[in-house]
């Protein structure tokens, strides 16, 4: 079965591409990105600010299971309804700096649409750190599999 969400991250590059096709008209897909109440539901975050306009900004806040709050924010550089959002993204109190995101919304048919997110990091090393950051568990899983294979060889 083909994966619905794809991530292309070539070795040694400072960017990556996320693509996904939806069983939704492009208008509804876009709305999911612009209405605070809906963003909160699918991103699992609190929306403190969301200004959907050129030169606007946004601010999100998530609370982890321990009750710690984590802030995220960015500036909206360009905003074209049902077509594109160009924005920055930064994790507050983290050493990763800012990343640039190009979101493109595309109508495929009346009832289907495609989202392409091109994310650009300051360096290839930063990209790889970010990719690994919240996913320690996944990496551990890969390591455990590797360990299993090694154990069998013993």
């Amino acid at each position: 079965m083909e994966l619905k969400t794809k991530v292309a991250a070539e070795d040694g590059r400072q960017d990556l591409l996320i693509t996904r096709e939806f069983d939704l008209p492009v208008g509804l897909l876009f709305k999911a990105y612009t209405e605070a109440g809906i963003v909160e539901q699918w991103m699992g975050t609190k929306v403190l600010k969301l200004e959907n306009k050129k030169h606007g900004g946004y601010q999100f806040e998530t609370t982890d299971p321990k009750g710690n709050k984590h802030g995220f924010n960015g500036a909206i550089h360009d905003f074209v309804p049902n077509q594109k959002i160009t924005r920055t993204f930064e994790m507050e109190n983290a050493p990763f700096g800012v990343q640039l995101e190009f979101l493109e919304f595309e109508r495929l048919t009346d009832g289907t649409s495609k989202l392409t997110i091109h994310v650009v990091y300051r360096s290839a090393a930063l990209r790889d750190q970010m990719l690994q950051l919240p996913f320690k568990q996944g990496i551990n899983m890969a390591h455990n599999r590797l360990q299993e294979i090694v154990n069998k060889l013993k």
Partner: protein
Amino acid sequence: MNLRRDVFQAIADPTRRAILLLLATQTMTAGAIAANFDTARPTVSKHLQILTECELLGQQQNGREVYYHINAKNMKQVADFIEPFRQMWDDRFNKLESIMKNYKSDK
């Protein structure tokens, strides 16, 4: 040898990534691989040794020559490190899709 860390360290080096790319479509001897780099032959040998130790490369004796090949199974594990990231976005987008489908039928 700390195998668990080495696979990911192995691909952090640009020369080693270039070696893996070279071997993606063919098997090659150490000499043929080294001919593609400006670095000294012993340096390339060291890279080949590291890649072999963490089992990204395998060796096969063919007459007097030793040919290197990619160990595809372990390369897949390298690709796996973006899989959790992909999975997270897939979960989020699935949620988005179901929320918006309800949104549509609410109207």
